[in-house]
Structure formats: C-alpha cells, structure tokens
C-alpha cells in the first residue's frame, strides 16, 4: 500500500530518486514503443481525418471537419455503425452464455476431461484464416456438409445460402464469431470457478437451494468480477473485429454485414479516401471510449453497492 502514495514523500532522498529513475528506465522501452507504434499513428489518424487525401500519393487538401459532416449525413456510415452494434451485442452475448455454460460443464467430473477441455478451447487458438476457411467449407452451397446434413435430416430441402443473403449472413458471422471466441470466456471463467470454495455450495445446499439458485446465488456473484473484465475485453475486440467478417462475407450482401472496421478499410484502400477513412476510425474510437467509460462507471457504481 505504501508504494501507492509516496510520490511526494522522500523525494529528496537520493536512494528514492535512484529508485524512481530505475523505474522510469524499466518502463522506458514500453513508452518508446507505445509512442512509435500507437501514439504516432493515432495522431496521424486524427490529423489525416481533417484532410481529403488520395491514399496512393498521400496528397490532398485541408477540409476541416467536412469528412465528419459527410459521415453524419451518410446512410452507409449509420448502417455500418448499426451493423457493428448488432454484431458486437449478439456475438458477445452468445460468447458469454456459451462460455459460462461450457465452463460449468468442464468444471464437473467427466470422462477424459482434459481432452474435452482442449477440444473446447481449440477454436480460440486456430487462426482466423483457418477458422474462416473451415466454416466457408462447411457452409459451401454445393459441397458443404451443413447443407447436406440438414437436407438429410429433413430440415432443409434446398441448400441454404449461409453467407450471401440476409439475415443468414449476419447470423452466420455471429455464430462463427461466437464459436471462435467463446473459449476465451471459458478460460477465464474456468480459472475462477476453480477458486470458489466448496463450503459456499454446501451452505447453500443446507439452506435448501436448488441447482439453479445455487448457480444464481453462489456461482454468478463469484464470477461477477471476472465477467466484468471479460465482457469489457471481448466487447472491445469484437467491436474492432476485421479479419473474421472481412474473410467470411466481406461485408455483404450489399453492406448488410459491413462493420466500421470494414468501412475504414474500404474507404482507405478501396476508394483511396484516406481522410474519410481516418474520420470513420476516429469516430469508431470515440464510440468505444464512450462505451468503455460508461461501462466502467456502471460497474464502479455496482461495486459500491
């Protein structure tokens, strides 16, 4: 605790100064790299968003906030924002629900549990490219096993267009996103579950709690802290997700699954509009920042209660 406060105290002591200097030296590489790979590009993005710039030459004119004004009036931008929100909320919800359920399951005694754990966690570790390729192969209209299994089972009589039309394509990316990332929730929740003391459950059982109320009254409150962090991290990552959506649907049909990162990419490299792309990116960051601050605040308020 002492270390948390002592900025002013004892600054006169050369030992203390030496220590502080060492501390600064240890953090220096981090700060340097941060400045180079994050701060500098970030500032560039802010700066570029005020220009109208042709990407290949990086030449253009200062236009002030015209790019932002254009965005505000662009239905494509609002649609992309909406898509981003829909995708993030849906896939995140599924990740959390599946993640908790799978973690509870894997925390029970079962045959070959560690093999089961490995298999469940694996989707998180295969690269997005592999995941997308495999799913595109499963979804394939002509030779895909999903269509044929469904037709064989009598669920479908014609192959389904999983990726090319709405709402299927949104559902598909949400499902693949959930499949790919729910193991992250499993890892975190499983780690926490193992530390919940058994007496808590015994006490609940003595108090006559059934399985469901043991879950809601004992397990969930214990998981709360972990879930707060996991939700935050996953929300940010899902919001930023590019590879998976770009490789699965490319944003289509039309722009039905085009999220903001895809829009940035399209503006910057498809349309060579670096300025507008940067403006979209800046707005995207602002949205996330607002979300994050709001979220942290709500959680702090709950902590205090």
């Amino acid at each position, binding site marked *: 605790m002492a270390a948390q406060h002592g900025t002013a105290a004892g600054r006169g002591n050369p030992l203390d100064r030496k220590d502080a200097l060492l501390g600064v030296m240890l953090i220096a590489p981090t700060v340097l790299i941060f400045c180079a790979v994050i701060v500098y590009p970030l500032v*560039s993005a802010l*700066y*570029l968003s005020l*220009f109208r*710039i*042709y*990407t*290949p*030459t*990086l*030449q*253009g*004119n*200062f236009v002030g906030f015209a790019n932002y004004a254009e965005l505000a009036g662009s239905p494509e931008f609002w649609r992309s924002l909406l898509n981003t929100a829909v995708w993030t909320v849906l896939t995140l919800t599924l990740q959390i629900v599946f993640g908790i359920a799978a973690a509870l399951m894997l925390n029970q005694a079962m045959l070959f549990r560690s093999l089961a754990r490995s298999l469940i966690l694996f989707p998180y570790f295969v690269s997005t490219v592999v995941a997308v390729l495999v799913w595109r192969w499963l*979804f*394939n*209209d*002509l*030779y895909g096993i999903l*269509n044929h299994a469904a037709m064989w089972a009598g669920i479908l009589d*014609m*192959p*389904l*267009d*999983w*990726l*090319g*039309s*709405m709402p299927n394509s949104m559902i598909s990316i949400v499902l693949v996103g959930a499949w790919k990332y729910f193991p992250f929730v499993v890892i975190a929740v499983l780690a926490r579950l193992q530390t919940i003391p058994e007496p808590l459950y015994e006490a609940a059982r003595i108090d006559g709690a059934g399985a469901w109320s043991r879950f809601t009254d004992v397990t969930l409150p214990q998981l709360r802290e972990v879930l707060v962090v996991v939700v935050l991290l996953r929300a940010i990552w899902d919001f930023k997700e590019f590879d998976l959506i770009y490789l699965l*649907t*490319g*944003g*289509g*049909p*039309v*722009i039905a699954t085009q999220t903001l990162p895809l829009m940035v*990419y*399209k503006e*910057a*490299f*498809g*349309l*060579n*509009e670096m300025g507008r792309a940067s403006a979209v990116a800046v707005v995207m960051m602002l949205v996330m920042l607002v979300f994050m601050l709001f979220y942290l605040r709500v959680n702090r308020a709950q902590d205090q209660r």
Partner: protein
Amino acid sequence: MSILTKGDLTRRALGGLAAAAAVAAPGVASAQARTTLRWWSPQTAPAQREAYNFQIRTFEEANPGVRVVFEATSDEGYPAQMAAAFASGQVPSVVTHLPSFAVSNYWQAGLLEPFNDVIDMIGPQNFYDGANRVYEITPGQYAGTGIGNSAANAMWLRRDLMERAGISATPRTWDQLRDACRRMQGGGVFGVPLPYGRNSMTSLVFICFVHGAGGQIFTPDLQVAVNSDAFRNSLEFYKSMREFAPPGATSYSWGESLTAFVSGATATGIYTGRVLANVAAQNPRIAPFITAHEYPTVSASVPHWTFNDFPSVMIPKVAPNMPMAKRFAAHLFRADGYIRQLHAAPGHVLPVLKTISAMPEYQANPIIQANRAAVDLMSTMAASGHNLGWESPRHRPNTKAGQVIASHAISEAVQRFVINNEPIAQVVSTTAQRLETLMRA
C-alpha cells in the same frame, strides 16, 4: 523539412508523413538499385510461377549482377498494397496482370512512367492492331501495355447435359440461355454460376450484361448512363437467372464460379480459357464435352460484347534503376519466356503479339491443340474486347474505372435488386448518384 522547400502547403497535406517517406525512399532505393528488381503480379498459379521463374532466370543470365524478385499480390488485395507502395515510395519495378483501368488510374495520378520506350523495344508493329489503344490516356504517351488478352465472359457449355435435356442449338439470346438453364437444371446440377456477390467479378460480369442489352455504364464522354432501359432490362434478366445459380452465388467470385463449372455443379460457365486447364487437372471426365462460345445477348440484333481484362504491364515512376526495369519489362515479351507464361494456363491469357500467335511453339501445347476452336474463338473475341476503362472504341479511357469497381457500386446495385428486392427505380437512381459522386471526386 522538405515541406517548406516544396512549397504549396495545402497540397502537401501529410506534412511529416510524406516528407519522411520522401526522405527515406531514395536511401532505400539506392541500396537496392544496384542489384534488385521487384516484380509484382496477382497471377500466381503454380504453373505460372514456374514460367515466371524461367523468365527471371534468363533475364538474370543476360544481365549479370541483377536480381529479380517475384512478389505475389492478389486481385482483391492489390489496391491496398499498391497504395502503400506508392505512398511510401517503395514501389515495385514492374507490375503485371493488373486490369488496364488500374493502370489508367495510377497514370492519371501521375504515378507511372511512360511506357513508350518499352513498346519500342518490343516492336510496336508486333502488337495486334489497337492493342495499346486503351493505354493511350494522354495522347502520344502510353501508361503501360497489355501482357495478354483475355476473354473473361466466354460462355462454357456442357454438351452432354445439353444432349440429355434435348437442346441442340447453342443459346444466342438471353431467353434461349434461360430456357436451356431451366431444362438442364436438376439432379444436383444448376444452370449458371453467375456471381451475385459484392465483389469485382459481379461488377465486371454485370457490365457485360448491360452491354449485352445494348447499354453502357458511361457515355463515350463519360457521363453516367445507368438510367436507361438497357440497364434496367439487364437487372431484370440477371435477377431472373438467380434461380438457376447455386444458392451460394450471392458470394461468388471468379474462383467459386470457375470451380462450380469445373466440378460439374453447373451446366454452363462464364470464364476465360482457364476452364480448359482446370478441367484437365481436376475433372477430366467432362473434358470431351465442354465447348466455348460468345456470351448471349438480349437479342440477335445486339452484338456480343467481350470483357477483356487487358492484363497489363506498368512501371511506377519512382521505380529505382529505370533503364533496367524497362529492359526487364520488354524481356517479358521474349518469345521463349512469353510462350511458357501463356502455356501455364492455355487459353487463359492470350497473346497480345500477333507474331506469337502464329508461332508453332505456341500452337504446340496439347490443351491448345485439343481445343483449337475454343482458343481461336477466344483470341478473336479478346481482340475486339473492352472493359469499363474503355467501354467501346468511341469511349474516352475512363481513369476512374478502378474506383468504380472497388466502390462496389455496380455489384451492390445487383445485390440490392436481386437479393434485397429493392424497387428498380430506387436502385438505378442510387447507383447513378454514387457513380456521379465517384466521377466527380
């Protein structure tokens, strides 16, 4: 920094960024200049890579001390990669196989070296007549040249399936095509692998249909022309073909479309001559039954319109060691290597030099020999082919064609009408608006 000496602050929007790149690029370049040329292409099938390696080897042997590095790009990825390369000044020496409209776009931005020297080295008289017309954006100067021709919208048919369905005549009109598809569809086989995806193939193929209806995207002086009956007709027809395309056609691009026909899942195909090589390799069972034709149009009175990608060669203006880069570009047309390159996918990339077409070495390929009729047809088609960068002989070259394709304005029009069922008037007006914005930008 150089921002002040260069003057014109408003134009140098990127200030430090651009200056940094400008300062750094020559340093990097000079380090590489002595030895290395970088060659980019999106055409990277293994057999093509082998041919490229041969051309590189012969060039390196002829020019000691020079090293050529081949670097693959891709049809969907090249805009970003070229943008990054131009922005940084670290450009490839020679870029091949990009569509001609990409070349004209970069030319317009002043990023390319005039190609006249290279054309002179190859010999202007050896080209098919008018082969370089599409690259003459500034009169008297060429932005690049074609490295090949392609007939990207050849119609491929399965004679065995036609026979089974009782069709003897090759479809000439849209109605005949649709009728044939209806009769051949069934038993796991679909009619056409037409693309309905949000990608460049859908845009490019649909442009073929607009011309097949007697229309155009832009007028010869490059005014937006989509608000026309021809455009609407082609949308209607394209939509009516959806039921004969596999369900996943909503995300089809070249690869899926080709594979669908080659694997036997569709009764007709739309692609270049690469079909021949792929069938031979992957599904030889159907090889005896496939034939190539010009794609039908709305009626016999509307002439065929062949989509020629005009796979190009270009040299960025800031490419290091310019004389050597030009020599290498010309070297790519030397008969021994060029024929190998063409043979890597027989019928896919067609020669731009009439001298080559006539050579027995070129004719000697077994696939070409087995499919003489198809290859000859495609050569003829390609020679009179066009694309969005140059829609007809009367058109001015359209330097914005690359952005039009990349914006997906056209493929989105298809998707809006076919998949989303939006009213046709709304689709047309939105598309017209977007195209106008793009042309103005």
